[in-house]
């Protein structure tokens, strides 16, 4: 059942384009963000914005790997749409007076490591890896975090923006799971070999090393904002539920690995996991700036809060 018609999806994506200029960023309601919320919201938004941006880069890599032209074009749009989300979130930050002038907020160190990894290696990762990690990122970090925001912030403009963002996300997920299922087809044996091959790839290990702490950091962020972490976990379980609803999807070894990882992330009692990973979060905070990757790739500079340039 779950398979979607990619041609129709592409047409729908094209027909559902929106722009920052469609939203009145100066409409009343900004004052609904409370003084108490403000500092935490600022940190949260900065991270969220960067996660969207990082997701965007993931789609750029997937467009390269797409097995057909339609999927390639869809990913090209999704790449742009994630950037649009980042832009819209930056516009919200601007509206709430959270930007330092026109400057894009600094990404946290975990994100900087992820950015670095994406920049160096994502184009070399097989679609199997990206096609599984990205939907996970989408659900856990992107989709779920967006809904949290709506629970805490009353500003109608924020709701307006996220209504559109979530609408886009629903299409991202639809395609994400479709691809998971697509990849479940075929010779399982080959799939496993390929998976093992990439797991042993040191570049991927580096990726995991930056992805895991990012998840934990966002969990901390969520708690700091006064939200139950269960919400984040519920979202991650959604990945397992939807991704695993067909045999093809379940057969995808990457789905297996990632959903299992998701389960571990959710289970706080997994000290073997959370101990070191939490330590990594704290450690990355301790990395002195001068040893952090200094070269910022130019794709990072494309974000803007301006509806018209």
């Amino acid at each position, binding site marked *: 059942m779950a398979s979607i018609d990619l041609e129709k999806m592409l047409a729908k994506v094209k027909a559902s384009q929106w*722009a*920052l200029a469609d939203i009145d960023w100066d409409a009343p309601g900004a004052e609904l963000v409370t003084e108490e919320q403000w500092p935490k919201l600022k940190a949260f938004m900065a991270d969220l914005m960067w996660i969207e941006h990082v997701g965007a880069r993931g789609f750029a890599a997937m467009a390269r790997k797409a097995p057909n032209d339609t999927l390639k074009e869809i990913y*090209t749009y999704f790449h742009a*749409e994630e950037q649009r989300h980042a832009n819209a979130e930056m516009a919200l930050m601007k509206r709430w007076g959270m930007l330092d002038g026109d400057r894009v907020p600094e990404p946290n160190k975990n994100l900087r490591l992820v950015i670095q990894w994406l920049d160096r290696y994502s184009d070399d990762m097989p679609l199997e890896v990206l096609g599984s990690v990205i939907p996970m990122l989408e659900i856990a970090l992107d989709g779920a975090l967006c809904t949290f925001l709506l629970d805490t912030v009353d500003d109608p403009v924020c709701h307006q923006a996220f209504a559109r963002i979530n609408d886009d996300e629903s299409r991202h997920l639809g395609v994400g799971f479709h691809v998971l299922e697509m990849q479940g087809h075929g010779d399982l044996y080959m799939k496993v070999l390929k998976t093992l091959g990439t797991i042993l790839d040191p570049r991927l290990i580096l990726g995991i090393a930056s992805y895991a702490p990012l998840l934990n950091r966002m969990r901390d962020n969520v708690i700091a904002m006064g939200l139950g972490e269960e919400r984040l976990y519920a979202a991650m379980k959604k990945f397992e539920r939807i991704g695993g609803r067909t045999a093809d999807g379940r057969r995808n070894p990457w789905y297996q690995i990632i959903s299992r990882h998701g389960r571990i992330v959710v289970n706080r009692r997994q000290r073997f996991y959370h101990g070191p990973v939490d330590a990594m979060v704290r450690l990355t905070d301790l990395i002195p700036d001068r040893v952090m990757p200094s070269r910022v790739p*130019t794709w990072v500079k494309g974000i*803007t809060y301006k*509806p018209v*340039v």
Partner: protein
Amino acid sequence: MSETDESRITTNEAPAATPPKATARKAAPGKRAVKKAAPKKTAAKKAASKKTASKKAPRKAATRKPAAKPASVLIVGAGFAGLGMAIRLKKAGIDDFVILERGDDVGGTWRDNTYPGAACDIPSNLYSFSFAPNPNWSHSYSGGAEILDYIHYLVSAFGLREHIRFQHNVTALDFDARRGLWTAELEGREPLRARAAVMAQGPLSNARFPDIDGVEDYQGKKIHSARWDHDYDFTGKRVAVIGTGASAVQIIPELVEKVRSLKVFQRTPAWVIPRPDFRTPDWNKTLFRALPASQRAVREALYWTHETMAMAVIWNSPLTRLAERLARRHLRRQVTDDWMRRQLTPDFRIGCKRVLVSNDYYPALRKDNTQLITWPIAKFSENGIRTADGVEHELDCVVFATGFDVPKSGTPFPVRGRAGRELGEEWARGAQAYKSINVAGYPNLFFLFGPNSGPGHNSALVYMEAQLDYALRGVHRLLDDNLKLLDVKPTVQARHNKQLQKRLARTNWNSGCKSWYLTEDGFNATMFPGFATQYRAQMATFEDGDYDSEPR
């Protein structure tokens, strides 16, 4: 091959007029600007003539009554192909032909494409007729104005002007099998008849606008590369160029010098290789003039250089890798930023689409006032372009470097053959012909740049000359044997196409990338799968047995 060589020698008498001295013109930009005004007028008139042609005062050419006696040959189009056909007819002693041209000047491609930076990307010595060499080319790759001068020179040197009917827009061709005559329907004029017809309306003569939402809402200036507006002042303007094909890479380096900001909207990057351009030194021109054989030798050398390129471009060979490496190195040298490089690197095999030749395109993209935008275009708004990243780009002017409508299926106007056949219907799923030039059921009709005649690696004019020779033989057959009709046999045509498609399947064009060479269903009705030498060999023989004929 020998066939073509022979004909070259017989036709290589020096023409009456002297070839154009283009050096001076190139140095005087003022003069160039004046020249440019004419094509613009053409474009405007062309547009106007769509609606009001019948009301317009008839021009000189039109005052001539349509000949009571049908002409021997009618030619549609006065570009390189139509004029080349005319020259060959004239030299063969066939004088009663007419050229029907919808514009009001000759030159076709080079009359219409007068955008800044327009130039050929095949060396001029090869992008000219072998039977009318020009020793005066100022550059190895000449600019559009110089090429247009050369075309004007052809018209006067061979006395073609009296044959050309300007502002004669052909709207249909009908064959009368009883009389063995083609009738050209003309917009707002009496139809015209001839025993043979030559379609030389150009493969790239109808400007294409992309199908983007809201184009009509956009209030700023719109210019198509093939209908340049020389009155528009780009100084200090915010300009967008849509498209990154052959025209765009020539326009962008020129525009960037004038405008305030230039945004280049790219959908797919193309392979770009460096271009060995240099001014022709004076001693070189003197040599060519004194010793025409030396110029023929250079042409020959250029021809074979381009023939080797076929190995890289047409088939997947070690040379393909080599060409890709050359292009990658060119990119690496000229663009330092990793992300920009990534965005400019094609993900298809070189040759699958037209390979671009430029030294100044990449540097132009790196200029401070230029921005390469790879987000998909979502729509036009009143003030500019909205991209899918949610941002609106405010613009004063949008330049469409989006190419041409290439009829890969169907015909540019209705062509009706024997027994009520309509060619557009027959070609709906992809065009087919015999040796690119004749189609069964449509006797006495010759296509220049018909199906599967496209060069991917060599001068279009090399291919064109082979077609002209072939068409001339067909016309000779028709007139000398006093035939009513000469029609290629359907079986012969079918066999030809079967072989053709088999060979095409092995080429880079059919290797799975989308391009304007292919129809929606991936049928290649555009390119010739082989060396120019093979194409010339194919065209060198005219087998009477391939044709059905009927006497008059």
